[in-house]
């Protein structure tokens, strides 16, 4: 059954004891993993809502990624550390820890063949690791400010990383060399009064036909320290690197914390900010969103379930919104 973004609604909430940060569904779709300000990683079983806490990081956790077989979870913290976990264990203990970066590791990704893990940090470095044993494979140097997002190209030969400056770098994985840069400067602002850099490439995605690259973040950052900014998504043509569309919306103050491309072809962004949390939907040929859905609280992370219908979003109010992209009446039958 095709998803219907215009019918998106809240189906269920899950609750933790601390404000939540980020989330991911596991590849099998049985579990939702979320991270929280109490440093916990929470695994909810979707069928019955039971939860298991993973404790191992010495700081907040932002990055979540799974091995290709779905049996291993890797998390990245603001404590310089990557941790490998048994995804479905009753009493999960770290399989392996690696001190990977100097400072926050904001993003991680697993290669399409499952062999490699990429990580990007506040030390402005992108690193590649052997997924099986956690050994370092390569360091990619070039970013001028903090790395905010990483993504493997489906061909497995290339890696993309986005930074606070609004630069997206395409790397050749085997040669550990930069291939080219996409200029996403619209996602960066430097406020000379407040003397701060702000914005950044918060999320990356590639369309199924590999012809367009999507990068989310914020613009109109007139008061970075005061949360005055609006969400935006840039759509690049992969070959020419031209910006084809700047997807915006009206009446929403916030930042795109994550964008995903739905199997039906539309882009879904999760915005959090001073006007609350929103799921926002855009079509390829249109500047403005064709639909937006206000959630129960500002949002900080989002993921799309493998079924293409369920969407999870994490909130400051300690809750996860489990939304469905279908009519409410269908949802009630399930």
């Amino acid at each position, binding site marked *: 059954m095709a998803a219907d973004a215009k019918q998106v609604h809240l189906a269920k909430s899950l609750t933790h004891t601390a*404000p939540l940060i980020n989330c991911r569904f596991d590849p099998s779709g049985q579990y939702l993993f979320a991270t929280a*300000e109490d440093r916990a990683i929470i695994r909810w079983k979707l069928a019955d809502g039971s939860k298991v806490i993973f404790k191992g990081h010495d700081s907040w956790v932002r990055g979540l990624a799974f091995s290709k077989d779905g049996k291993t979870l890797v998390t990245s913290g603001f404590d310089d550390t990557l941790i490998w976990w048994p995804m479905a264990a009753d009493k999960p203990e770290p399989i392996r820890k690696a001190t990977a970066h100097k400072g926050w590791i904001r993003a991680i990704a697993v290669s399409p063949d499952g062999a490699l893990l990429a990580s990007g940090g506040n030390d402005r470095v992108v690193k590649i690791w052997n997924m099986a044993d956690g050994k370092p494979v390569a360091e990619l140097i070039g970013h001028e400010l903090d790395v905010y997002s990483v993504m493997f190209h489906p061909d497995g030969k290339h890696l993309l990383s986005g930074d606070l400056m609004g630069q997206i770098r395409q790397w050749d994985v085997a040669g550990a060399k930069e291939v080219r840069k996409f200029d996403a400067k619209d996602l960066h602002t430097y406020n000379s*009064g*407040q003397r701060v850099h702000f914005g950044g490439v918060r999320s990356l995605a590639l369309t199924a036909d590999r012809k367009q690259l999507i990068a989310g973040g914020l613009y109109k950052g007139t008061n970075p320290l005061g949360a005055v900014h609006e969400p935006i998504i840039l759509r690049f043509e992969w070959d020419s690197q031209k910006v084809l569309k700047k997807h915006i919306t009206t009446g929403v103050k916030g930042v795109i914390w994550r964008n995903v491309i739905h199997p039906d072809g539309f882009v879904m962004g999760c915005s959090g900010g001073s006007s609350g949390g929103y799921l926002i939907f855009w079509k390829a040929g249109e500047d403005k969103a064709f639909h937006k859905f206000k959630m129960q609280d500002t949002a*900080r992370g989002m993921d799309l379930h493998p079924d293409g219908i369920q969407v999870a979003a994490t909130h400051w109010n300690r809750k996860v919104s489990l939304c469905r992209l279908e009519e409410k009446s269908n949802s009630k039958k399930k």
Partner: protein
Amino acid sequence: MKCDYACGSEDHLIARRQFLGGVATGAGAVLGGLGAFATPEAVAKMTKDQKRVIVVRMAGGLSQLESWDPKPGTDTGGPFRSIPTSVPGIRISELLPHTAKVMHHLALARGINTRNGDHGKGTYMMLTGRHRTPGQTHPELGAVVARGLDNDSLTLPGHIKVTSGGSGGRNNDAAYLGPKYASISLGGGKPPAYTERPKDVTEAAAKNQNQFRKQANDRFAQRRRTAETDAYVQSFEQAQELMRQRDVFDLSKESDKDRERYGKTQFGEHCLLARRLVEKGITYVQVTHSNYDTHNENFSFHFEQLGEFDAPFATLVADLAARGLLEHTLIVVLSEFGRTPRINKYYGRDHWGNAWSVCMGGAGIARGAVHGATNKNGTAVSDGQVDAGHLFHTYLRALGLNPRRNFKIGGQKIPLADPAFEPIKELLA
């Protein structure tokens, strides 16, 4: 209150020597009219030992939890960890690794409760040591110490503010102490504005103009000398000195090696400029680092801002120590307030004056000391609560000034510091 010391009085001649050595003098003593001026030898020693002040103002409100009083692993602690420092038992935020290495030169007040969350009131409070009251304006710390510590042999202004932007110029922050002690801003760290002789005015013409001005001034002063006319005269004289000694403010005179050590950031350059200015005998230098008003993404912005602050500040402290200047130079790192322990929904922290910290060090300060504490998650002061007035008293005592003494302004006695407070003895050497 107006600065109107009268012609014919000796008040305008009062310099630092009348403030010094008076620590043992009881409260209520009046400054002014002391007759015993120091010997030339004493003046020379005084110049060498002259006390100086460097204040780093963390504009917007530095988070105590991301700096001097971290609470990792609590509901308010945020993502950053604490690290050990060069003083056993003292831990500070991991955002300050370089400062941690010079902690043995510094001290912390961790029990500050100013009960204020307003930028303007907080800045006033922290720089004057007094709560703002309607109809009353008090001089800032820089003006008080410039008045108290300026040596007669010093010809440059004793109160300098290095700001991140702006065009520079004279500020209105000396209140009843008069414009002589008001600060001069170095906008963007540049030399004072209008201190270059216009190209179309020859040196000879400028000299003639000044000679004529002096003659007219002297004649006028014989009959109608007031604080205002003195201030005009002093402004002209000081302007002449600023033009003559413009190099004092020229950072390019510092070695490439030092410029490299302090870094190429604006704050790094301003720290090096602060070192240069105190070495040249400027009494009070205030450097502003902006901006910490992080209602949104507090952690990312503190990572960015303190990443810029940490290494140059630690280099400055270490340099002053290595050059024998630290024992004569009081260093203070302050804000208008701290930030809320509660983390808001934008990963921000808001204004908070109820439990926060200030760092100080150098002249007269007990190195490696900590006074005051907050509870487990930093939501309240649990020990050693102090207000801005206590800190102001502490700074003056550390400099050898007696905060219990009075300025005599227009026949009225005004205490150097708010008499409702005391110095923090535990932070004094």
